[in-house]
């Protein structure tokens, strides 16, 4: 968590912490403030470290133990340019599991809803369904400790015992403190994992799903959803290809491997949610996520962002994005 582990700090201030080139006209000022940025980043890291050390690590989350300590390095080692295949799923560090569980309640509700439809749908347990929940995420966040989780579940839904068990575990996260920490900013070394914890990436994940979407010939998208015409899919792919070189141009992480990962990610999302497919702007979301986390983690985080937080914004009608 030391600032020296920031992936792009070695670029001597010609690039910012994310690896973006600092514009020449801002370079002088950026250098002047570099010391302050570093100091602030250290303060942020200390505050979060202190907070996370007070979090009890919940049992049953030991799958992530190996990531402990060296976790950030192993994650960020992968963001550096270099040969890369599909990056395997990496769970967030155990100290974040409380936040993740808290934020996952909304995901699990939805998941269990989707499970009910699984009998009909069969192929893809998390594939986007019509008529999904549209509760405001903030509301849910703040209400989460006030409501009885058993009431939160939908009638007739008794299949997912895991939901109840996890929900009943006491969460002692102080929301005021968490909110304060978030407002103060996320330290670079934790940012990718915190985003995942907040989106509930772990709870969204279905093993093997991303691999099945990402592998194979992109031209075969049409096989997955017969209701959409072939031309539409060609349009997605054409637009994605246009936007690949136009996503963070010049960024060192978006070399050939980086662009291949971005292509896989965007095509996988389009297959996952054909009602949205590909919409310009998702390239920037996905690209940013890839800077901060392994490819499959980026996929599930993107799913959370586009399916939930921006539901309706990127659909063909862009209904939520319209200004009146």
């Amino acid at each position, binding site marked *: 968590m030391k600032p020296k582990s920031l992936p792009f700090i070695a670029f001597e201030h010609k690039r910012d912490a994310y690896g973006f080139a600092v514009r020449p006209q801002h370079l002088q000022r950026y250098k002047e403030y570099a010391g302050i940025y570093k100091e602030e980043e250290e303060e942020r890291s200390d505050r979060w470290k202190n907070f996370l050390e007070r979090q009890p690590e919940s049992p049953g989350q030991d799958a992530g133990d190996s990531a402990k300590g060296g976790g950030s390095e192993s994650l960020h080692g992968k963001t550096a340019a270099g040969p890369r295949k599909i990056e395997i799923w990496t769970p967030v560090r155990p100290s974040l599991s409380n936040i993740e569980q808290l934020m996952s309640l909304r995901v699990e509700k939805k998941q269990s809803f989707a499970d009910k439809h699984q009998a009909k749908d069969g192929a893809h347990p998390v594939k986007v369904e019509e008529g999904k929940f549209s509760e405001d995420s903030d509301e849910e966040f703040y209400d989460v400790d006030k409501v009885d989780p058993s009431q939160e579940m939908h009638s007739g839904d008794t299949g997912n015992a895991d939901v109840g068990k996890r929900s009943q575990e006491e969460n002692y996260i102080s929301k005021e403190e968490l909110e304060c920490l978030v407002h103060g900013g996320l330290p670079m070394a934790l940012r990718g994992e915190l985003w995942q914890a907040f989106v509930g990436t772990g709870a969204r994940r279905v093993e093997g799903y991303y691999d099945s979407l990402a592998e194979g010939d992109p031209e075969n998208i049409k096989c997955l959803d017969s209701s959409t015409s072939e031309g539409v899919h060609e*349009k997605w792919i054409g*637009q994605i290809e*246009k*936007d690949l*070189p*136009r*996503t*963070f*141009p*010049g960024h060192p992480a978006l070399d050939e491997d980086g662009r291949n990962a971005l292509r896989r990610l965007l095509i996988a999302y389009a297959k996952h949610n054909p009602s949205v497919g590909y*919409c*310009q*702007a998702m*390239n*920037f979301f996905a690209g940013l996520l890839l800077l901060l986390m392994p490819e499959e983690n980026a996929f599930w985080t993107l799913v959370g962002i586009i399916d939930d937080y921006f539901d309706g914004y990127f*659909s*063909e*009608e*862009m*209904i939520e*994005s*319209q*200004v*009146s």
Partner: protein
Amino acid sequence: MAYRAEDDYDYLFKVVLIGDSGVGKSNLLSRFTRNEFSLESKSTIGVEFATRSIRVDDKVVKAQIWDTAGQERYRAITSAYYRGAVGALVVYDVTRHVTFENVERWLKELRDHTDANIVIMLVGNKADLRHLRAVSVEDAKGFAERESTFFMETSALESMNVESAFTEVLTQIYRVVSKKALDIGDDPAAPPRGQTINVGGKDDVSAVKKSGCCSS
């Protein structure tokens, strides 16, 4: 008045840049307003805009140019930004015929959302890629004549005709506006009374200065 503030202007005209994704709208804008061109540009999301003032006759005309996202579904939101536009550059890529074919739809979109007096120029960009040309000048010219639009081929990369294309559109708008002002016996420089001089006719975004360009 000898002194004139740097950002002072007589007319403010809103102009929109539309056309398929990747035809070079953003580079046309950056070439005209900042004299910059980038081979490594980023996708435009939603709408971006920039301004530049030019001189027409003895008047300062400030162009407020709105650059839009090209992906088809964005039309649902970008059409809202056509409101009040008095000029438009409908851009296609001379090396990709499909972008020329789509001009018809862009024109319809534009005419559905703007005033009939809007000044439109058809712009064939990337004219520097001579060996890759897929749309002939004759075809484009013929189309422009049928659609009663102006026409020009440009290269944002070589800085060819970019200045002329924008200047032509702005000058034509100026002619329309000052003619209108004459028609109703008004001095275009005078503060408008009840009636706003506005070829857009739908709101005040493009209008003679001080007619409340920021009120909407």
